């Protein structure tokens, strides 16, 4: 399906807006996972504001698509998407991680509307998503499950257990998205535990593989639409991204995985994220 320029532009603006929300919610003097939030922001914007069927007024709607943030440490990005969708007030984002608050450091199913299951111990979201996909197949529901993973995260062996099982069960209602920003908490992935060719790995497990630029909204949309047409196999979208995207001093800088901003950085980030 072709989309007008204005439609694409609006989604791009939403990606940028989510980044801005992330910076506003982190604020200054407290660490927050801004690097991986910024790399995933366009992907998440496309899911929540284009692809997924979901209802902020009825988060448990039977007829919804599901999203799991397997890279749960960027919960603030998902909170931004949920808030901008109308699940809860945008003003609440700045209270994230306050003691007892409903917006926790990692997604919490019991506390936050719109969260499908607790994630953040890395490597588990794809399996949880597969379980949902299998449950939806039993119920003959046509909806999809989207799972966002990090490229550092896929060092966890459970990802490949899930990759094998999803293929064995022909879970064509499961779509994995790997945010390939090339950095993990402590350094460059190539220098930590080189994951080699992610696409070759998923291909060998029997997945349909799509490689895209994770900051090109047209490519993101095309890939998500393509996944709808694939039958008999799960789809993985491998999205080439930049960690810290949109904030010049944070782009490709390891320490902003879970970075702290001073007043000057905070102001600069907000100025750049227009």
């Amino acid at each position: 399906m072709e989309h007008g320029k204005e439609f694409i532009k609006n989604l791009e603006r939403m990606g940028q807006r989510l980044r801005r929300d992330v910076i506003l919610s982190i604020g200054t003097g407290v660490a927050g996972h801004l690097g991986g939030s910024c790399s995933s922001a366009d992907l998440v914007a496309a899911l929540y504001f284009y692809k997924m069927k979901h209802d902020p007024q009825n988060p448990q709607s039977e007829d919804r698509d599901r999203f799991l943030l397997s890279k749960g440490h960027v919960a603030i990005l998902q909170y931004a998407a949920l808030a901008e969708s109308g699940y809860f007030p945008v003003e609440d984002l700045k209270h994230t991680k306050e003691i007892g608050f409903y917006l926790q450091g990692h997604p919490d199913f019991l506390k936050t509307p719109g969260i499908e299951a607790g994630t953040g111990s890395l490597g588990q979201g794809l399996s949880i998503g597969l379980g949902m996909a299998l449950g939806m197949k039993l119920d003959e529901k046509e909806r999809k499950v989207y799972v966002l993973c990090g490229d550092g995260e896929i060092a966890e062996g459970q990802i490949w257990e899930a990759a094998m099982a999803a293929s064995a069960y022909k879970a064509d209602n499961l779509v994995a998205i790997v945010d390939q920003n090339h950095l993990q908490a402590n350094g460059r992935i190539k220098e930590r535990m080189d994951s080699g060719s992610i696409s070759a790995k998923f291909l060998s497990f029997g997945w349909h593989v799509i490689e895209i630029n994770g900051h090109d909204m047209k490519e993101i949309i095309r890939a998500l639409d393509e996944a709808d047409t694939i039958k008999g196999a799960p789809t993985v979208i491998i999205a080439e991204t930049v960690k810290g995207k949109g904030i010049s001093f944070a782009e490709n800088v390891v320490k902003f995985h879970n970075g702290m901003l001073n007043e000057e950085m905070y102001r600069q980030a907000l100025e750049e994220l227009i």
Partner: protein
Amino acid sequence: MSCTNQRTAYGNTLVELGEKDDRIVVLDADLGGSTMGKMFEEKFPKRHFEMGIAEANMTSVAAGLAQTGKIPFTNSFAVFSGGRAFDQIRQTIAIGKLNVKICGSSSGMSDFGDGATHQCIEDMAIFRALPNMTVLCPADANETAEAVKAMARMKGPCYIRLNRNDYPNVTEEGKPFQIGVPAVLKEGNEIAVFATGYMVGLALEAAGELEKEVSVKVINISTIKPMDEERVKELVKDCRGIVTAEEHNVKGGMGSAVAEVLRKECKPIEFVGVQDTFGSSAHKYQEVLNYYGLTKEEISRAIREINELTKERSSRK
């Protein structure tokens, strides 16, 4: 139908539940022939998921199934159910109070041939340390059937530990299982024995043999968590001392749980169980039980010890 094997009772009951409720789904990790998940698989192939030798994935998949309204039962040997998938259980199932039922089959020393790697002496400790988790350890096949029905009825995460081998039933067939309610199987007013799983039958035998010497109350405590604290305190009110008996490490298991509840009662307790050591292979179940002191003789010894100790104390008063 009466049977004397907890695994068979488990398999039968899953099928029975599956017939009435299509939300019941079962997952196995290549051990369905042993966990008896295969009975469900034969009857309901679409609702049985063979996940291969990948317990972590199986457990998280079950979490996802629960989030679509299914009631998943995951099966493996107890060492793997909790051991290989602990993080998956903790992070998503326990924190989120998801409706996942976890079966630890071949628990305790019951997998006698396979040795320490497969003899699970720490599962009750592991599961009991998780908030939101219910932990069951039925005494026999009869109680297993009813406990599994109770698991399916309750909402939230639940672990059940089962024995691999055949042994006689000590509880009544078809008696509805109430989670959290300990049952007095034999009245007595000097020493209270709390026993769980396979050890319940041995505790009854020991108490019977000591009848002329000391009056022993035998309590089947098949819910390890949540424990009805008031009821447990009340049960020991008329007794001078306590013995616990479990096929589990004495560190962190049922005995520890009972001791936590009775911490202000000032009554001596002796723990019969595995004394903080791993297991070992044997040709017969009885050999390994004897080797680790999981016997009625050991329970009798503990009852006598606590009896003597508390008699001395009460005569000194």
